[in-house]
């Protein structure tokens, strides 16, 4: 079964827009929810992570919003740039291997 569901599958935004990527999880035991960014031909790289006792976390232009009751979390990218074009994966972990969503391919067009 898919423990972390991610949407949308792909997203196109104009430069300066705010793409939003959503994830939902099943296992309430997860205690960290990271986001990874992957460029073509590269491995994923950690972007930002949040614990479930925090409702929002910002790092630079990246913000995670977390809704524990709904078992959902999302990534917002402020003032998106063409260089942000990549595939983004949400994930979850607790004393278990990282469980990844299926990914969102983001294209930021100038």
């Amino acid at each position, binding site marked *: 079964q898919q423990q972390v569901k*991610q949407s949308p599958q792909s997203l196109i935004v104009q430069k300066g827009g705010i793409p939003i990527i959503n994830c939902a999880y099943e296992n309430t035991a997860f205690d*960290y929810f*990271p986001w*990874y960014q992957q460029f073509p*031909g*590269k*491995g*994923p*790289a*950690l972007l930002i*992570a949040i614990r479930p006792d925090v409702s929002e976390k910002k790092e630079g232009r990246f913000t995670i919003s977390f809704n524990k009751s709904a078992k959902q979390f999302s990534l917002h990218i402020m003032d998106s740039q063409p260089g942000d074009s990549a595939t983004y*994966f949400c*994930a979850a*972990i607790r*004393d*278990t*291997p*990282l*469980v*990844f*969503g*299926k*990914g969102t391919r983001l294209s930021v067009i100038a």
Partner: protein
Amino acid sequence: GAGVSQSPRYKVAKRGQDVALRCDPISGHVSLFWYQQALGQGPEFLTYFQNEAQLDKSGLPSDRFFAERPEGSVSTLKIQRTQQEDSAVYLCASSFGGMSYEQYFGPGTRLTVT
């Protein structure tokens, strides 16, 4: 210093051949993970080492897959009698501590089985 490195970057194997994929983790990282990433999908866990001990191999899809990390640093993922469904990118990641969300990934090895 350097990040996680993997070799070869690309491997083409004929069905039935054995392959060996190598991972050099970041120096000093205790934990090492192998993932399989199919085209257009997220990475899926294969196996986990803490130093030389293989603590979790629940993700290995069959007994044709074998991983080792004999000295607690470099790791090798071996696939015997490759099948077409083994075609994927194999990613290696390392982390400083144990089962951590903060994992550093290598560029992967793209395996194509013909």
